[in-house]
């Protein structure tokens, strides 16, 4: 290869005037340093709410819940931020995960209240609908591990099937967004109509506390660490994914799918894979969310509004930057709680207005804005000017 190419390089290469040897990557360890420091900072930042709100029975659960939603936002960021597929129905996968764990905790609660082994005691909604015994398909879900496994597996399977079909027949752009939304609406309607098996529009309120390895998560601080730890793991996994060659292909698809295809990448397979991975992540987030909330309802997790809200969270934080999804979620979710306390009716208007503002003034979100500001700040610093102009 080198020998063959030498003939070509023998000719005067265009503009090869004074290419500094900057192309050679820095030592691997040194190159990873910012990532490692960033992750440590991220973990450290996650400890702050516990220190500040350890005894706060109001704000700590809200922050915990927001962190679960942040995992969900990561999944939307993978699909929309990195690959450019605007899914307005990610709530479907979140909802599937949420319901799986809700079945487990609901059956466990029924067993605690009415006696009998988990999976045999009737739940509240079954009694209300005069169901005689726990359906055979639902009983095994009393096992929390099976429920969590299905909370991840089921959304993955649905997302794979849907993604494979949609991307093979090249459904794109607004059609893709509408179909994802329609599917979520269909599942929403189904869940509402199947009250004997899903709890209908009320859902499953007042679930049992999460119990893993015989340990019951009684305190909010424990719950917080469970969710925060999960967020760190999911974040690191997503980071590994988007920084890998696979992730670069996703960005290439977002920038120019035709070109990616022309380079020989089977873009439909890439899109299906990332959609499935995002489905798994969304399902996992839904499972955690239910464990925190200890209630699940179709309007809350399967409503169209929820799916759209997540897209806005990612846009506010900065699409295509994982940390942006987390920051956007925390800021908007805490803002939402605050505003809901003051003036509940105003929230949808404020959310919509926020979206317009971000699209018009901060197209790259908060993180993108901060990055640009950093570059400008460095330019003002004459000593560092060369740092900005020269490639890192």
């Amino acid at each position, binding site marked *: 290869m080198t020998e063959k190419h030498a003939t070509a390089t023998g000719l005067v290469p265009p503009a*090869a005037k004074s290419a500094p040897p900057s192309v050679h990557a820095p030592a691997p360890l040194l190159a990873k340093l910012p990532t490692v420091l960033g992750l440590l900072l991220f973990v450290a930042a996650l400890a702050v709410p516990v220190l500040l709100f350890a005894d706060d029975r109001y704000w700590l659960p809200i922050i915990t819940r927001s962190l679960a939603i942040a995992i969900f936002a990561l999944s939307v960021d993978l699909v929309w931020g990195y690959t450019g597929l605007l899914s307005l129905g990610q709530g479907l996968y979140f909802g599937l995960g949420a319901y799986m764990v809700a079945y487990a905790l609901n059956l466990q609660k029924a067993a605690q209240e009415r006696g009998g082994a988990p999976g045999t005691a009737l739940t509240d909604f079954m009694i209300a609908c005069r169901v005689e015994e726990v359906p055979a398909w639902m009983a095994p879900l009393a096992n929390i591990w099976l429920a969590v496994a299905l909370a991840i597996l089921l959304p993955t399977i649905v997302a794979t099937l849907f993604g494979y079909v949609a991307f093979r027949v090249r459904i794109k752009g607004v059609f893709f967004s509408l179909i994802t939304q329609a599917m979520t609406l269909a599942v929403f309607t189904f869940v509402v109509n199947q009250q004997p098996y899903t709890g209908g529009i009320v859902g499953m309120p007042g679930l049992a506390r999460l119990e893993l390895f015989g340990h019951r998560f009684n305190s909010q601080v424990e719950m917080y660490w469970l969710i925060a730890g999960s967020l760190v793991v999911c974040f690191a996994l997503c980071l590994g994914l988007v920084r890998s060659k696979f992730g*670069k292909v996703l*960005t*290439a698809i977002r920038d120019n799918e035709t070109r990616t295809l022309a380079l020989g990448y089977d873009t439909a*397979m890439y899109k299906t894979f990332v959609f499935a991975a995002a489905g798994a992540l969304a399902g996992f987030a839904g499972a955690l969310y239910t464990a925190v909330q200890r209630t699940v309802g179709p309007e809350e997790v399967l409503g169209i509004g929820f799916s759209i809200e997540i897209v806005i969270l990612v846009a506010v934080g900065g699409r295509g930057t994982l940390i942006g999804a987390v920051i956007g979620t925390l800021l908007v979710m805490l803002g939402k709680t605050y505003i809901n306390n003051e003036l509940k009716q105003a929230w949808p208007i404020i959310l919509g207005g926020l979206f317009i503002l971000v699209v018009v003034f901060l197209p790259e979100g908060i993180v993108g804005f901060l990055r640009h500001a950093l570059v400008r700040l460095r330019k003002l610093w004459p000593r560092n000017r060369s740092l900005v102009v020269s490639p890192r």
Partner: protein
Amino acid sequence: MGSPILHVENLTVSFSGFKALNGLNFSLQPGELRVVIGPNGAGKTTLLDVITGKTRPTAGRVYFRGEDITKLPEQAIAHRGIGRKFQTPNVFKSLTVLENLSLAVKGRRTVTSGLFRPVLNGEAGRVHEILDLIGLGHKARFRAGLLAHGEKQWLELGMVMAQDPELLLIDEPVAGMTPRESERTGELLLAMARKHTLIVIEHDMTFVRQIAHTVTVLDEGQLLCEGTVEEVQRNPKVIEVYLGQDREADAADRTALCVVR
């Protein structure tokens, strides 16, 4: 002559009645650098579209190294070793120059081959070689969206080169370039032609004379004539096509017209 690397037989493409290509026959020997010229609407870009599988022909066949590739999907044709550089720069603007080239380097394309693997996975040598050749070594870590127009075109050429295709299709490589940039591009193409077979579509006759061995002239979807630059310029049919009064003489054609005179 040996067997042609590319052979096009009776190729016809019609778009709702309009025949962009009309029974075109065309073949190419390995290692050739062929320039295709022709007035607007002659079917030059359509020809490339058909070869790469982007457009399906209404009739006719395309053979690549003796294999019928007429009905293969786009990515399968790319796998066979046909690369294309588009008319407008088509680089991935959010990726760096280095990443753009890395994705283009010939190698495995499956989903699993790229999962949790670095983008430069054993191809660093080849990528840096190309970076030097296209003269963008000092901008390797720039986002491609920030490059100047000419630099984007070189990056494009680098990406096509990285695919290491046997046949390279290049659509208007010097459109919008300064004369100096255009000359450098010519040098780059000549360097590439030693390893690859090239089809270049170009309007700019100064550029055509710089690089061309054989020129093919298309008109109304058909082959008008083939030969060296001098032969083609003397050909009365070519002169007629470029001077034809009923033809809309746009800027690009006028360039060609001056040269023909």
